[in-house]
């Protein structure tokens, strides 16, 4: 099964990479970008086939390693 995980910065956490993207897009002549945020996208290929169990495991992986919950949120999509 494939797990697709999005890790994004919490609201209110400064995002230097997003700010730099905003700025650079502006200087490249792309107007009208109100905001840019950069997060991570992690794809896991896991052996588990049961969806509920997979979700539980991947959630644990996010809590323990993949996201820093002090500053980040995560969301999980599963696909057989």
């Amino acid at each position: 099964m494939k797990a697709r995980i999005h890790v994004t910065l919490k609201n209110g956490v400064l995002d230097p990479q997003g700010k730099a993207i905003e700025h650079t897009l502006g200087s490249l002549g792309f107007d009208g970008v109100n905001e840019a945020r950069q997060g991570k996208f992690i794809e896991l290929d896991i052996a588990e086939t049961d969806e509920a169990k997979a979700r539980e495991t991947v959630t644990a992986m996010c809590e323990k390693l993949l996201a820093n919950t002090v500053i980040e949120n995560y969301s999980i999509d599963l696909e057989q």
Partner: protein
Amino acid sequence: MKAAVIVFPGSNCDRDIQVALRQSMGSEPQMVWHKDADFDDVDLICLPGGFSYGDYLRCGAMSAKSPVMKEVVARANKGVPVLGICNGFQILTECGLVPGALMRNSNLKFVCRDLHLKVERNDTVFTKQYQAGQNIRIPVAHHDGNYFVDSEGLKALEDNGQVAFRYSAKDGSVSEASNPNGSLNNIAGVYNTKGNVLGMMPHPERLCEDVLGGTDGRPMFDSLVAALS
């Protein structure tokens, strides 16, 4: 005093700290491989700078899960002094021994240069040989030193006197202009609430000898030796 330096895969300032400690201690610190959780009882644990696990995913994230870190956390909670420098600071935030997080520098560039730090307090084991308010010159070398903590967290840090050092100018003033990386309130280092754990981005171990350009880092190691011997 007995000290341990934890070596993670990708640590690269482990020897630098070893040299600085040796100079102040007059004896050898113990080098501990990250897989060896049962190391000797020591008076000080150091987490060195470097790029443990390549700084992949998040700086310090993977090292924070190393077997040895469970032990470090347990000992820190019992009061053993822990000093985390640069990547060591990132590891300390990732395992929750000090609050906050270190994000990419605001200009997104790695920065390596000498800068100035204002010493906030001199009543901890790390800083007794500095003056409170003293302005010292210490180098930084990092890509992710932009200190962040949420607003309550920041208030708590300031109220409890947990800020250890702030980035300052040569004249001692603290302002946006003297901030190399975008850190909140120019924070360069923080203590845990008990004051026995210090995480800092600058590298005191790099300026402990005149021939290397200065000795403003040396009092930190001398303070530790004086307090813990």
